[in-house]
């Protein structure tokens, strides 16, 4: 067993519970002892882009401090938004002067830097490997056609991308290793509208309609994402007439394929085999 520090974030304990349950079950089967970091706090959701806004890095850096306190050198995130804030703040405090100023807020503790932030997708690609993942598959996906949806934060800004920001393949490769079929999905790197869902609902509905039609045109049965905000928007901001594709988390697909209990994937597969096509 390999230990792995894990930062859940708010969504994984609430609306994205199925993602956490599924991923943790799958990681246990892949030989990881996942250790949730103690006293974690909000990652901040949105990375601060203003140069003078140091205060907003305190939250994410405090989480890195907790990882350091566990004696771990890296931390796993499942949520794309958490990956964004944690990985970018980790890089932000590589500058000693910035780190000194952030540490002033963390006193008497001090973050020493150097914690690596890993997203589930890169862990599966770089450490587990597609072949070993495929060898662990216990249950067929029965040709489930999957639109792998990246959205923004996994790929942009370029310096933090989990894969080639102009042509990512990691999520498709994972889906295929699990026995699913990754369909062409040209809009897979486009923004869903994110938090505009609170302030400008109509804008998000326009985005979501376009994304779902693109996924459906590629022949998808389901959309798979690692972002709880994308998941919310794709299900809750679907405009009238857009294809009603189920939007699942990658963790749910993983869990099902590796033999853990995952009713949502089962229902999607049953839907297909009984000839029910969405939209």
């Amino acid at each position, binding site marked *: 067993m390999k230990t792995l520090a894990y930062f859940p*974030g*708010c*969504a994984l304990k*609430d*609306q994205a519970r199925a993602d956490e349950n599924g991923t943790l079950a799958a990681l246990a089967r892949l030989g990881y002892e996942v250790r949730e970091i103690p006293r974690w706090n*909000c990652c*901040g*959701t*949105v990375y*601060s*882009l*203003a*140069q*003078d*806004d140091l205060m*907003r890095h305190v939250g994410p850096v405090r989480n890195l401090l907790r990882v350091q306190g566990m004696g771990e050198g890296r931390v796993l995130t499942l*949520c794309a*938004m958490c990956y964004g804030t944690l990985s970018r703040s980790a890089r932000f405090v590589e500058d000693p002067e910035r780190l000194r100023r952030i540490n002033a807020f963390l006193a008497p503790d001090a973050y020493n830097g150097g914690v690596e932030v890993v997203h589930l997708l890169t862990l599966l690609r770089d450490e587990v490997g597609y072949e070993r993942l495929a060898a662990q598959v216990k249950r067929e996906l029965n040709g489930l056609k999957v639109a792998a949806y990246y959205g*923004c934060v996994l*790929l*942009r*800004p*370029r310096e933090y991308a989990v894969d080639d*920001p*102009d042509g990512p393949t990691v999520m498709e490769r994972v889906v295929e290793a699990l026995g699913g079929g990754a369909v062409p999905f040209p809009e897979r*790197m*486009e*923004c869903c*509208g*994110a*938090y*505009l*869902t*609170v*302030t*400008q*609902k109509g*804008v998000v509905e*326009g*985005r979501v309609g376009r994304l779902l039609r693109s996924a459906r045109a590629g022949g998808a049965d389901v959309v798979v994402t690692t972002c*709880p*905000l994308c998941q*919310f928007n794709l299900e809750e901001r679907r405009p009238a007439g857009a294809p009603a594709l189920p939007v699942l988390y990658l963790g749910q697909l993983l869990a099902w394929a590796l033999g853990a209990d995952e009713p949502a994937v089962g229902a999607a597969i049953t839907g297909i085999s009984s000839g029910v096509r969405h939209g």
Partner: protein
Amino acid sequence: MASELRLSRAKLAAPFARRVEELSGENPYACYQCGKCSAGCPFADHMDALPNQVLRLVQLGDEAALSLSAPWVCASCHACGVRCPKGVDIARTMEALRVLALRRGITPTPVRPDRPYPQIALIGAYRKLTP
């Protein structure tokens, strides 16, 4: 956007442009107005000025940039930044404009959530609306 344009040395050295540069960490004068950011912006349809036009106003030191809706429609998806041939991360320029506007008391319409939202949506939205 069509209005009379008066260029002057004073405008180009405008404190406003410098302040936006300072807050964003992005050099507005690197932009040569190719429009690639606006072509790829998923939200351009809803903006009162296209991303390259916003940057143009900043270059000209025109504080009208602070009253636009465009920075508030921007979702910081960074599609512009990864495509910019000059490496300008315009999402950062938009953030600088939001921050400057908020600090000067220019605020968009107050938000009244119409339903329960996941934390991730609410926190994302309020972070954008606080200076």
